[in-house]
């Protein structure tokens, strides 16, 4: 009789209510998110370095010296990091007939970034990088929009 009584008491202690289930699910989701953002985000096992060159056409001469090597580059839309400027050059802009446009410069910005596979190409911070693609980027002090003219791994 006592044994039965004890058995009844233990079956009471493991009774789980709907509130307990909700709490367990919430805690499980929280732990899963914690693991995801702690480990999955920093997992760079499938990442690699790429270099891409952006041509910024027709920049006013007085603004053409605003980019320097070492500048961090961000996406204009979401401010996510897009790499670091590793090389920079400029030349006089020309029109469709090849004539020099006075006071205008074309900028060539080489950016090195950590990329991840994206389809058959590469993406930096979720933005696909491919030749002929238009990119709107910025450093902390200068906005520039241009065409990607080269991508290399």
């Amino acid at each position, binding site marked *: 009789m006592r044994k039965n009584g004890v058995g*009844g008491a233990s079956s*009471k*202690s493991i*009774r789980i*209510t709907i*509130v*307990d289930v909700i*709490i*367990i699910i919430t805690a499980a989701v929280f732990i899963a998110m914690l693991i995801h953002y702690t480990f999955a985000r920093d997992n760079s096992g499938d990442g690699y370095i790429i270099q891409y060159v952006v041509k910024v056409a027709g*920049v*006013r001469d*007085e*603004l053409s010296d*605003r980019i320097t090597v070492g500048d961090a580059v961000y996406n204009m839309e979401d*401010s996510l990091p897009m790499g670091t400027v590793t090389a920079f050059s400029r030349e006089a802009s020309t*029109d469709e007939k090849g*004539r*020099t*446009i*006075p*006071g205008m410069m074309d900028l060539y910005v080489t950016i090195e970034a950590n990329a991840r596979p994206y389809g058959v190409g590469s993406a930096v911070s979720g933005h696909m990088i491919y030749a002929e693609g238009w990119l709107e980027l*910025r*450093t*902390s*002090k*200068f*906005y*520039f929009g241009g065409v990607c003219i080269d991508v290399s791994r």
Partner: protein
Amino acid sequence: MRKGGATAMRKRSYGAGASREPAANENKASIKKGFGVLDAFAIVLIIVCLISVVARYVLTDEKGILHNEPEFSDVAVSILISDVMYTTADNFTEDMVFYLDGSADVVGKLDANFTVTPAQYYTDNENGELVLAYHSEEGGNVDIRATLITEGYFSDGTYYLNGKTLLTSGMTITITDSGGTMKVSALVLDIALVS
């Protein structure tokens, strides 16, 4: 025998009812008394959340401890408004206020030192080369170089107008006057703290 049988039946049915009712009562009691560790955890969690909300409100608004928004500074934003009618330039006066693209967001006040020059354009010279030329000073289009005194803060070298609109040189912004009668595109040339 009959009587006895009836009595036995009554007793039996009574006995069956008696065995169910205590079990039901036991279940109710176990639900009421089943205050476990998880329940305590949930209550503590709710209390901590409530305390956190109150603490944040108190510390942010009264003590200012968590008030981590940077202070706004006066920042000079140099702009170039290209190739507009000279009548547009005539409307420019010191301290006139400009707004961001027809919204209620103030961009800043116009500094007194603005210049109006004949607008540049490109033309071919006798050798077929592109050269810069200028519109007529009388009634021609003009370029306006101006400085707007704005408010905002710098974060990692990036300027946030009014603390929310990212602004860098090279960007083109659309600005309107307070009456909403003038709307022009302005190229941001430079951004600097007002000394």
